[in-house]
């Protein structure tokens, strides 16, 4: 007949197995949270730059046409203003790559209801690489419009 006895040292193996399984999962969760948080931070920063670019571009009117004809028409260089003010307000960092910066004038240049500035960027992941996720792609968009003071 066998002898029943409780020996704590006999559980060492099972704890080790649990630790080996849980620690990577914990690291993965923490890494996921960190990488997603970084992506949101970058998205916020890029969105801010898009907002400023959209605002400044919407102010870029053909002032000569406005003064002489009273029309509200976008100047030819409004697209340059989009890029100029975006990059003035976005600090380029290695972890974030701007893949696409685009704009769209809603209605027409002769009747610009508003300007839409769109940006797509890749944020390099730090921890999610473990599970073969190298980048998180973010999309952001901002609208700007000119308004007469009234």
């Amino acid at each position: 007949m066998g002898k029943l006895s409780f020996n704590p040292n006999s559980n060492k193996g099972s704890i080790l197995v649990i630790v080996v399984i849980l620690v990577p999962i914990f690291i993965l969760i923490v890494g996921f949270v960190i990488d997603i948080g970084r992506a949101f931070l970058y998205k916020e920063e890029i969105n801010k730059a898009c907002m400023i670019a959209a605002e400044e571009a919407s102010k870029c009117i053909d002032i000569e046409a406005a003064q002489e004809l009273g029309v509200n028409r976008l100047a030819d260089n409004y697209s340059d203003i989009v890029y100029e003010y975006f990059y003035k307000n976005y600090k380029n960092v290695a972890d974030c790559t701007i893949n696409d910066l685009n704009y769209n004038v809603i209605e027409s240049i002769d009747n610009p209801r508003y300007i839409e500035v769109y940006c797509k960027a890749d944020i390099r992941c730090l921890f999610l690489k473990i599970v073969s996720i190298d980048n998180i792609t973010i999309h952001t968009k901002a609208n700007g419009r000119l308004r007469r003071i009234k």
Partner: protein
Amino acid sequence: MNSGYWRSYTAYRTVDTSHWETRTRQVWVDTSYMTSSGYWRYYTEREWVDTNHYEYRMVWVEDGFYTAPLHGEVIIDKSPKFIFTKWHKDKNNEECCMEMNLSWKVDNSELLESEEEKEIVRIYIYQDIYRFDNKGIEKVIIFNEDISPSAEGSINTITWFDYSGSEDSILHVYLYAQNGESAHIYFSNPINGFRSINLNSQGSSSDANIWLGGNSYGKIEF
């Protein structure tokens, strides 16, 4: 012998039984009395005091004469048509402004005999800007100077506006002749201003704003 008999008869006589006697009764004794009390005080009231009277006074009487009113022609040439505040840049990247040329020509053809030729001696130009959001009226003096007397002439002004204003904003031009006669010309001159805003993701379905204004040249006869 005495004979006779007794017979009755009626006799009247006055019996005075009156006398004094003391009786006790209640009677009303009136002890009330009239009294007045008070004091003197000062008071103020408005009273019309008629001071009309006849008097003789010396007055200085100038010799008067009939005169023809000021007639002529004013040309206002404003540039640009649509005015913007100085906070915006024009095509030369300079502050937006309003340039105005005012020229006048007094018509002295209908002067009366011995009447002096009329000349413009002073010009006063200002603008009342009716600001938005009930922020009041901003008065901008554009020109307020004596000029060398002339029946025909012109001036150029440049004005920068700090505030935008509605179509109720009026530009006033006064031309004064040497004897005090004046001509007043005024017209609507709104001042434009703009800013940019961010919209939500829905954007906007309303068209772009148009600008206020439009008068750039005016020829006025008075």
